[in-house]
């Protein structure tokens, strides 16, 4: 629905869900398409957001035996939520993993179709103030992620940085600059602290 308001067609919106299948990156890409970001900026931001899947893969690869065709299939449908569900099982199988993945895939794509049909039916989104849905959606995604003081500092710093950079440049530049800058700040502020497994699992539940 957000993607439709950003000027994407129904087919394009659905293609994002079918092929990319990554919630936060899809939302973000829709926002970036709307601001006229370049392809490179959108792809790089997607990369920043989805590189965390390497972590999930590393953990899951140890729990589930995946060889031959099973590995690319399992990889394509891997998400935060799937990792959250599967990693808590003691001895997950490929079947269990794929079941969790596909049930989420179908739900996500059906809701995309529904939202796309509704979003396309709204005539003049900006005049109604519907463009406010963009920042509000990301705010609602952001709030549950901010639980520690460092996370709050990073969120406030990133918001301010993006606002300033956006006055000087357009498109995806503020997001790319802030994505790297804010994350560096957070990593630097938490340096020396142990990276426990619990924290990683928390991160997954937050993003999900």
């Amino acid at each position, binding site marked *: 629905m957000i993607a439709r308001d950003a000027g994407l067609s129904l087919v394009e919106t659905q293609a994002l869900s079918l092929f990319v299948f990554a919630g936060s990156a899809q939302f973000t890409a829709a926002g970036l*398409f709307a601001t006229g970001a370049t392809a490179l900026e959108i792809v790089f931001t997607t990369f920043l957001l989805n590189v965390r899947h390497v972590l999930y893969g590393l953990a899951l690869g140890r729990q589930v035996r995946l060889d031959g065709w099973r590995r690319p299939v399992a990889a394509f449908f891997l998400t935060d939520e799937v990792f959250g569900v599967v990693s808590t099982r003691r001895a997950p199988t490929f079947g269990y993993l794929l079941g969790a993945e596909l049930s989420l895939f179908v739900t996500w794509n059906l809701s995309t179709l529904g939202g796309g049909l509704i979003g396309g039916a709204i005539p003049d989104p900006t005049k109604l103030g*519907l463009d406010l849905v963009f920042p509000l959606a990301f705010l609602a995604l952001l709030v549950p992620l901010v639980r520690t003081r460092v996370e709050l500092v990073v969120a406030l710093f990133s918001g301010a940085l993006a606002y300033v950079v956006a006055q000087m440049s357009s498109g995806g530049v503020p997001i790319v600059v802030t994505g790297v800058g804010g994350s560096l700040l957070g990593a630097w502020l938490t340096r020396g602290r142990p990276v426990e497994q619990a924290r990683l699992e928390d991160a997954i539940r937050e993003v999900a």
Partner: protein
Amino acid sequence: MTFWLTLAGMVAVTFGSRYAGLALRTELPAFCVRFLHFVPIAVFAALVTPSLDGDLGEGEIRVVGALATVVVARRTKSLGLSIAAGMIVFWLLRIPF
């Protein structure tokens, strides 16, 4: 056309990340893990502030709507309810102006 090129790039980096983890058997440096933890926070925050003002000079009431979203998001963690709260507050404030 640009859209489909962009989509192809998105698919490549997303699938690449998902596959790499399953295929590799190694540990990431601690700094990388910490960096990745903060990426969604930084990116989402960056997507909020630049478009909060809007083009119609309604900056103040849009910010008030955003505050409503924060309050509801803290309590419910529901994406739909949080957005709805912000929009309703914004539309209500819009009436007198």
